[in-house]
């Protein structure tokens, strides 16, 4: 474990660590573009210049291993001038696209220009023109003029996905990143290239032009898309959620997340959400406040002899604990686990993507085990077919896209005399249900997801989209007899 001094701060690093890692550890700022903790070292942007005591030449921090007793600093005039000049070199051929560039506001060039540059350009010559708005398939748009050739994206497709779509073609200042013959960049992790691009060369088609980043706020939470449980940052403003990006967590997702997971913000937005409680009556569907619908459900259930509960792995552990407890206490031990895609449930693509498309299957199984509930899906089917279930309560999924069997299953559930669907999102398949009660999405609540490895991770609560929607905790309180809705939902947290 060598020790070194970074800008006067002593720090101990792992064997073989580089100087830039020492900087990261001390939280001393160091400009860098090409270095990324999840990729190999390229050493090409030349921004991370440091002065090492006893070495007259400036060195790059990303490829210099720390030696015991090394004294390194990057706050000397010599380093500052070098970094400013390297930034100048980056910028001389960079187009003035900031007004139309999606990266503006979170762009490495803008950032370092403000912190290390602030000079007047001396470039009086023509800039090099390259290709703009290159369509790289369904997800990514490329602008080679904005590219600073840090090669992060190329290393990503070479090292992480190993799909090798991207390359740097030509040489010198004619170099351009791209795919061979502009073929699509359609691997399952392609949007990570957009995240790691320090400039606006790669932009996401989904997010493109929809919002300027400085209008967005963000919070950290856990991806709901599958059992991997990737840590993500969700971005929103008063109009809803706009995107999610991965947050590094070495234990869970490293630095990446899949493209599927990038869509999980969509169903949390208002246009997809169920906003009021719906009760089917002879006269038609009657809309009411969710709490009122829940109270009516309680009354309805109290007459029932045979009620059953179906749970999906899309709710938090806390909700399962309380709700299963209330339900079994009040209506008996009929609790079933709905597995959406049994055939591909155990799949794994070797990087992140899991076949189990529920964020908290392990949490659910732990709760059921803890309660001593052993049930099989076949039992439920048999009971439904034979009409043994009077009232079936289904805690339905949020992410309908990963439930290919939704229609089929809802038809099956319809065989119960009465069907209640608890759901955050609207679906036409639910229209036949007797009760539809709106639930909060994972973006709007606290709680725990347990990923496939059994790692418990806390959700970070974001803004409330549908303030009147319930959580299973609220619902269990109502089932237990309370007519008040807990403080958990509407009264806390900012509303959109």
């Amino acid at each position, binding site marked *: 474990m060598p020790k070194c001094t970074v800008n006067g701060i002593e720090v101990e690093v792992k064997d073989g660590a580089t100087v830039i890692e020492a900087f990261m550890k001390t939280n001393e700022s160091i400009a860098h573009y090409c270095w990324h903790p999840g990729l190999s070292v390229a050493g090409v942007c030349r921004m991370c210049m440091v002065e090492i005591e006893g070495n007259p030449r400036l060195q790059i921090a990303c490829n210099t291993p720390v030696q015991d007793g090394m004294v390194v600093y990057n706050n000397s005039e010599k380093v500052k001038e070098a970094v400013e000049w390297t930034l100048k070199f980056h910028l001389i051929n960079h187009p003035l696209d900031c007004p139309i560039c999606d990266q503006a506001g979170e762009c490495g060039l803008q950032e370092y220009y403000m912190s290390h540059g602030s000079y007047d350009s001396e470039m009086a010559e023509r800039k090099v023109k390259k290709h703009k708005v290159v369509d790289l398939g369904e997800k990514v748009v490329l602008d080679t003029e904005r590219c600073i050739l840090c090669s992060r994206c190329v290393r990503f497709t070479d090292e992480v996905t190993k799909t*090798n*779509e*991207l*390359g*740097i*073609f*030509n*040489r010198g200042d004619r170099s351009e990143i791209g*795919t*061979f*013959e502009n073929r699509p960049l359609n691997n399952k992790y392609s949007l990570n290239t957009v995240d790691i691009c320090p400039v606006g060369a790669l932009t996401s088609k989904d997010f493109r032009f929809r919002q300027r980043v400085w209008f967005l706020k963000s919070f950290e939470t856990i991806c709901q898309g599958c059992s991997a449980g990737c840590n993500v940052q969700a971005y929103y403003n008063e109009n809803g959620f706009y995107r999610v990006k991965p947050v590094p967590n070495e234990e869970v997702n490293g630095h990446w997340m899949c493209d599927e997971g990038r869509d999980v913000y969509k169903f949390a937005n208002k246009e997809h959400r169920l906003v009021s409680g719906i009760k089917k009556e002879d006269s038609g569907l009657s809309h009411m406040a969710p709490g009122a619908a829940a109270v009516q459900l309680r009354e309805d259930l109290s007459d029932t002899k045979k009620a059953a509960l179906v749970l999906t792995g899309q709710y938090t552990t806390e909700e399962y604990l309380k709700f299963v407890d209330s339900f079994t206490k009040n209506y008996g031990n009929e609790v079933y686990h709905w597995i959406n895609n049994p055939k591909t449930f155990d799949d794994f693509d070797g990087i992140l993507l899991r076949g189990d498309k529920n964020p908290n299957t392990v949490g659910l199984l732990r709760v059921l085990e803890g309660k001593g509930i052993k049930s099989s899906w076949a039992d439920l089917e048999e009971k439904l077919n034979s009409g043994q279930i009077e009232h079936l309560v289904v805690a339905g999924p949020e992410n309908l896209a990963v439930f290919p069997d939704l229609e089929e299953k809802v038809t099956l559930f319809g065989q119960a005399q009465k069907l209640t669907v608890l759901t955050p999102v609207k679906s036409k398949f639910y229209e036949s249900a007797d009760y539809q009660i709106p639930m909060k999405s994972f973006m709007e609540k606290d709680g725990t997801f347990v990923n496939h490895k059994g790692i418990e991770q806390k959700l970070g609560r974001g803004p409330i989209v549908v303030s009147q929607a319930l959580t299973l905790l609220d619902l269990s309180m109502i089932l237990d007899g309370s007519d008040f809705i807990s403080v958990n939902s509407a009264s806390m947290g900012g509303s959109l």
Partner: protein
Amino acid sequence: MFELSPEGKELVKKELARYEDKYSAIIPSLYQIQKENEGWVSPEAVDHLSELTGIPHSHINEVLKFYTMFNLKPTGKYHIQVCCNITCSMFQARELTDDLCQKLGIKEGEVSEDGRFTVSRVECLGSCDNAPAVQVNETYHDNMTPEKMDTLISELK
């Protein structure tokens, strides 16, 4: 669709086995493609080579576009490459190129109408003692003058 001749494929196979790393076969294979494909490497040819060797096409494309001796456009039967680097340009190589282009009625990099000539400026050919140096396909011609160039052109016709 471009496809290598059987001999060409054989050569690629041999090159793949010749070096410790199969990637080393890219450059010799591209030379072979260029030879068989009217003096240039087309995108289809890159695809073909990628299929043949199992090397990602983006990688082959990177190599192809990095090295100046691979042409990305069709070239004439005789590729006249005039060195315009320091010593040669001291001895009027640039004027010689302009002159030549004018005579053939083409711009640099273009193919003459009869499909025989392409003229391009290249960097040092390593024949500075005989400046200006000109390379036609793989043959060097030294101490070029406009007159010698005329003779050369007429001989190549």
